[in-house]
């Protein structure tokens, strides 16, 4: 596998930007072409991209990332209340606060790895969630949720004499299609940053940690600060997503921090393909689509859809499919998730790569040996994908070598 060229990365980013820009056109045929949903795609896409920098690159599975999303939301709403209705101060406040919280949680959680790390992060996130409902009520406004009020001070706005009823970006109100394009632009920027991180020395170091953390020390690396940086960066992405959520819907509630929200981003990333660039965004799209579109189907719609079927059959079909839509959308999602994990452990991206024949995962234990070796039972070449021409050739060579050896040994 050669490194991807700079040009290919730029092409990927431009392609991504074009798809985002054409979002309304692309998603209308499947019923998702309205700004509220596309906005959600973009915001949760940012969340998943950030999560992927931690989980996809280092393999450290955080089960508490929703805490950073929630803190980002609260920070943004407070910024709307105290500073300005403009998005920029809100984003800065959210990203900083989420980063600080990630620094604290990461510092403690990263003393452990594997399942213990996951449980620690989960515990911290649940702690944040519960505190938002109890002792922190003065800051979070508890179950009612934190909302922007007309008579909030907004010191910055007051100083500039600027009045805006809704959160805005430099005068543009974050609603409707404008809202989507603002979120989309941030998504493209986040994606570009993620490409840069993947290709940087930092990104390679994180992948090396995932591959063999033990080796890191003997190679001269102190793994912990790298892991902590990844944790903080992904926390900041979550904070950014949180502030955009607050901007599109200026009511922050603690439910954004609940463990189900943390679990959702894990699902999105794994479904799309952890450790890939596009995977988390695809996974987000799929899950949010199911959540919003599949759950909206009801019996009447199904009956209308299957109107062409004879009476007796139609009811049976509607009953059966009814299990998988509406309230049952999570059943569909669960089945889909199981299918992906079992058949495509690399997520949707693995499926796409297989279809396009871009990357073969060679089922090799050994690529054969250098000429000097005479292989004491180490010449293990297992099956390779049939389309892999070079591999076939290698195999033939190996077979020939074996045959020659046998001949040489024979008396």
């Amino acid at each position, binding site marked *: 596998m050669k490194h991807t060229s700079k040009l290919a990365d730029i092409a990927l980013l431009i392609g991504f930007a074009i798809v985002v820009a054409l979002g309304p056109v692309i998603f209308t045929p499947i019923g998702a072409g309205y700004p509220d949903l596309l906005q959600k795609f973009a915001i949760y896409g940012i969340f998943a991209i950030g999560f992927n920098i931690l989980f996809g690159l280092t393999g450290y599975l955080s089960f508490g990332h929703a805490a950073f999303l929630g803190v980002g939301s609260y920070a943004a709403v407070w910024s709307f209340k105290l500073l300005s209705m403009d998005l920029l101060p809100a984003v800065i406040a959210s990203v900083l606060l989420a980063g600080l919280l990630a620094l604290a949680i990461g510092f403690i959680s990263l003393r452990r790895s594997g399942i213990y790390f996951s449980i620690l992060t989960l515990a911290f996130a649940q702690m944040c969630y519960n505190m938002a409902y109890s002792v922190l009520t003065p800051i979070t406004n508890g179950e009612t949720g934190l909302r922007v009020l007309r008579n909030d001070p907004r010191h910055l706005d007051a100083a500039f004499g600027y009045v805006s009823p809704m959160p805005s970006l430099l005068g543009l109100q974050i609603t409707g299609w404008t809202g989507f394009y603002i979120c989309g632009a941030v998504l493209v920027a986040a994606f570009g940053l993620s490409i840069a991180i993947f*290709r940087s020395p930092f990104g390679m170091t994180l992948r090396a940690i995932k*591959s*063999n953390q033990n080796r890191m020390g*003997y190679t001269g690396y102190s793994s912990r600060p790298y892991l902590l940086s990844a944790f903080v960066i992904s926390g900041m992405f979550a904070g950014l997503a949180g502030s955009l959520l607050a901007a599109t819907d200026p009511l922050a509630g603690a439910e954004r921090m609940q463990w189900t929200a943390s679990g959702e981003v894990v699902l999105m990333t794994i479904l799309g393909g952890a450790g890939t660039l596009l995977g988390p965004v695809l996974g987000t799209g799929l899950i949010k689509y199911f959540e919003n579109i599949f759950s909206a189907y009801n019996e009447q719609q199904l009956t209308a859809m299957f109107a062409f079927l004879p009476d007796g059959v139609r009811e049976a079909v509607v009953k059966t499919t009814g299990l998988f839509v509406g309230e049952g959308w999570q059943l569909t999602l669960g089945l889909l998730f199981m299918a992906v994990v079992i058949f495509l452990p690399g997520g949707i991206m693995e499926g796409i790569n297989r279809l396009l024949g871009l990357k073969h995962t060679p089922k090799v*234990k050994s690529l054969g*040996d250098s000429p000097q070796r005479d292989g004491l039972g180490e010449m293990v070449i297992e099956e390779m994908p049939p389309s892999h021409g070079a591999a076939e050739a290698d195999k033939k060579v190996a077979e020939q070598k074996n045959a020659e050896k046998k001949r040489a040994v024979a008396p």
Partner: protein
Amino acid sequence: MIATNDIVLHIDHVHKTFAGLHALADVHLDIREGETHAIIGPNGAGKSTLLNVCVGVLPPTQGKVMFHGTELTGLKPYEINQLGVARVFQTPEIFGDLTVLENVMMAMLSHRDGAFRLKLVSRFDEQGEIGQRAIQALRDRGLGGHIYHLAGALSRGDKRRLELVMGLVQKPKLLLLDEPTAGMARADTNATIEILRQIKESGMTIVIIEHDMHVVFSLADRITVLAGGRVIAQGVPDEIKGNPKVIEAYLGEEQV
């Protein structure tokens, strides 16, 4: 004893006890600049324990290890590596999910940038200076054909060779080799000896733990024999060959 300038590694009366078992008892040993020093001994003699004490994996129960006048006791493996000690493992330890090239680039990066440096957005690939040097280093050691393969897919012998390259590109002041030819066929052992001889001739200080006497006697300037956690003999190869204690403890056993 005060470490003099030409002493690279000074192992000062090291003891190591595991739950009552004396793995190392009063091991005292100096590795001199530029020498290839072999540590041999039967199974369970404490060779690997000694190496682990040297690289900070195990703290000594008593005594200390000095590297160029710096005490290694209590330092973490990455700190010891950053001081200039590279280690090649008995069972290859590599980044299996990274390509062969990336493995070498990782070794070079920590040599250049230290234990931690946050470089978030600069591109790091085979086009860069480190990438080019890594490719050259791999070609020089006969791994040129595997540059873009996943390191985990290499044969055992090639993984060892890759590890050696990773050690060498860090330009270490001391190279620790843990049974570099264990499980290798004769032809490959000879190839490895040839590589090690080139490294030795470049003036590097090498400590080699080895079972294969052929390897030891073709490379070592001095030999230390461990048995039961104690140093039972030390000297140039000819002295060791003739030492009755060694023959009894080790060489004799092999000939039976």
